[in-house]
């Protein structure tokens, strides 16, 4: 097991290296010029050149990469072009809202989607199945910002149950924290619910055709226990896998949701950094997201053995 984890961790290194190189090249080849952005509207060409020099942007790409990679190797993510702050600090400051949002979204999605999926699989072909599947297809059909606006209009503006926007750190009180988290998390969870409900339905449906389900029936077991005791546990691996794959979806959604709800998280940081061509920040954030993605999927692979004793590492 330990050996497996070590091997997997080692295997993530080339992946992250590829990500780092890709992202670096992509950004440095872009036509944007952070120096011009920093200098502002009234800057002269000369001033811009000075800033460019100051940021090291006039060096050859290879040299820039070597410097960045060297710093990275020492755990130094570099400093933002814009905020006079180390990027590590910036990210730490932005991580709580994003984590809270992601966690709340997952919580909502999993607790809604799995029962729905199991129900749809059990009532395969019935109207319940069609409604669940219809909803999950619909969840894939509406852009997340439209869902956000609609929820804001109904629940924040018309009904006034929740604030329109903003984020309150957990340290500012749990009530306010929760109150501000509900709408964005629900917004973001819609597509996730659709994804997980689909997968749950499909894999439970497949498991229900297995011989051991027949065995359980032959023992006289009731359907509810067959579903949750025998079927769901066996269906867990593909469900958990899709949860992992969905992390990428979640990260994309976070970017949009944070923009709609003015949540000062990593997603917003990314968009701002991209729009401002703040290279070191973009690099760091994408690397971070990639690392999280790879890491979560590693955890998920490890979690397989929880659900399936046949899988041992």
């Amino acid at each position, binding site marked *: 097991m*330990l*050996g*497996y984890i*070590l*091997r997997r961790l*080692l295997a993530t290194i080339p992946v992250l290296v590829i990500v780092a190189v890709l992202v670096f090249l992509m950004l440095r080849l872009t036509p944007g010029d952070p120096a011009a952005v920093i200098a502002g509207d009234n800057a002269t060409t000369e001033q811009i050149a000075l800033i460019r020099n100051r940021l090291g942007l006039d060096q050859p790409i290879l040299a820039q990469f070597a410097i960045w990679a060297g710093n990275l190797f020492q755990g130094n993510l570099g400093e933002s072009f814009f905020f006079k702050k180390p990027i590590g600090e910036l990210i730490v400051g932005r991580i709580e809202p994003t984590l809270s949002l992601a966690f709340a979204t997952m919580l909502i999605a999993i607790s809604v989607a799995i029962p729905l999926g199991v129900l749809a699989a059990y009532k395969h072909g019935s109207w319940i199945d069609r409604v669940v599947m219809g909803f999950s297809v619909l969840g894939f059909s509406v852009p997340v910002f439209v869902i956000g606006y609609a929820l804001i209009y109904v629940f924040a503006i018309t009904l006034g149950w929740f604030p329109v926007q903003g984020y309150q750190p957990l340290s500012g009180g749990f009530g306010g924290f929760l109150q501000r988290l509900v709408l964005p998390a629900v917004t973001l969870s819609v597509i996730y619910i659709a994804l997980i409900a689909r997968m749950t339905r499909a894999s439970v449906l497949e498991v229900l055709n*297995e*011989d*051991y389900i*027949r*065995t*359980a*029936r*032959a*023992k*006289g*077991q*009731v359907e509810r226990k067959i579903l949750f*005791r*025998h079927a769901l*546990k*066996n269906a867990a691996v593909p469900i958990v896998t899709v949860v992992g794959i969905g992390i990428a979806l979640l990260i994309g959604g976070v970017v949009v949701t944070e923009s709609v709800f003015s949540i000062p998280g990593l997603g917003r940081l990314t968009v701002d950094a991209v729009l401002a061509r703040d290279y070191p920040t973009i690099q760091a954030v994408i690397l971070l997201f990639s690392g999280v993605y790879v890491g979560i999927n590693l955890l998920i692979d490890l979690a397989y053995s929880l*659900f*399936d*004793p*046949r899988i041992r590492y």
Partner: protein
Amino acid sequence: MSNAQTPVLEIAGLSIALPGGGDRARAVDDVSLSVAAGEIVCVVGESGSGKSVTAFSVMGLLAKALKPVAGAIKLEGEDLLTATPQRLRALRGDRMAMIFQEPMTALNPVLTIGDQIEEVLRIHTDLGPAERRAQVLAMLESMRLPEPERMHASYPHQISGGQRQRVMIAAALILDPALLIADEPTTALDVTTQAQILRLIKDMQSRRGTGVLFITHDFGVVAEIADRVVVMEKGRVVEQGPAADILTHPQHPYTQMLIAAVPSLKPADRKPALGPLALETVGLAKTYGSKTLFSKARIVHAAKDVAIRVRRGETVGIVGESGSGKTTVARCVARLMPPSEGSILVPDIDIAKLSEGRLRPYRRKIQVVFQDPFRSLNPRRTVGASIVEGPMNFGLGAKEAMQRARDLMALVGLQPNALERYPHQFSGGQRQRIAIARALAMEPEILIADEAVSALDVSVQKQVLALLADVQERFNLAILFITHDLRVAAQICDRIVVMEKGVIVEQGATAQVFSAPAHAYTRALIEAAPGRDFATGLAAVDAVQA
């Protein structure tokens, strides 16, 4: 058998409709049979005979599409067809129980053995955890499973196939049901394991007086275990009666045909083949090793030091149980996998290490007929396209290739116009014939038959074996015949190679190996073959018919 008692199971006039589109209207038509307490009733038939449908209808586990339309099923006098689902659930596992063909898939892979047996107790009794556990452990003990405590905590994948089937039986019998339905419970097992399981079932059933409805396609098993036999064909019962009667004096032509098709364990008389050497392996070995940075190298010897010689016109059988390495040898010889060591001489060039490019000319010399007739033909290509592919790869023109294919179709007993059809339009036996035709189209010198008849019904099996013998003679083929079935091997092979755990333990002329097995493992194999005495019975049938 006392008739005064109500039979445990009584099926009267049962008919089950097939959903539209099938090749017949009813899966089961007017079936009547009964099982008395303490009796083993075998239902025999080939695939599609309706024997499994009958069994499942008793348990109330039929697929929703299949509906009983007439008749009655009575368990200890209680009609099951009219029972409520709740009542059926209460009876299942308690008064009637079932074991299945595949013990691996029939057990839930993510729950422990103990848990799955205890489940029956949880459903049907009010016993506390400690009592349940004690009872399960006792049951495991009586199933002659080693270390019941450890077994209790094990998962299905951690125990052997035979042990799994014992666990299934334990779960089925723990509440002493009146009726046990066994659906081909030994088909997926090796012969030696099969023998043990059959003995166990017989044992438990006679000790507990359980009525057993035993579904099988194997007359060997019938001869071994049955009190009474019910023969089914295409959903109908064609004949039933005491086992001894049916086996020795079958009345219905279908039964006669079936019994006659069972190969005898007594080797056929064969002249020794004296053709030139076609294939020789020297010190052939295949090892699987996974060397990684963090774990010690684990090396598995799938085959070791294998030396086999096959002459033109000779059939050499490799027999052994699963894991013996027989298929590994076949795949190495066919160069579908590279051997780790040793040489493969065809007959004087070593192809063991040739690159794919240099191997190509030798490819046509060696052809394979695979086990699964449903997967060995590309479902998206016509049969003709599959057959002509090889010859055309080696430069034969399209017209000539089609002509050859037509000739071969006739040779294997199929209509030449079938070339334009797709594999799904053929039965398993027909597909196996097509696969043989495809192999022959290459004009090979060596034919490897990898369990080529194992998936077929006995009647079809017999025909395919006859076909193989026929083409061998016509083309003077060297055949390497891989099988786990001693009966088949006895009938077709000139020489037999017995493998166990990757090594050859014995080889020699077929008659010699069967009459005087030198190795203990060979002896065990022969002894485990079900219905060994049945061979004599068969001889009797032959005598009668003659």
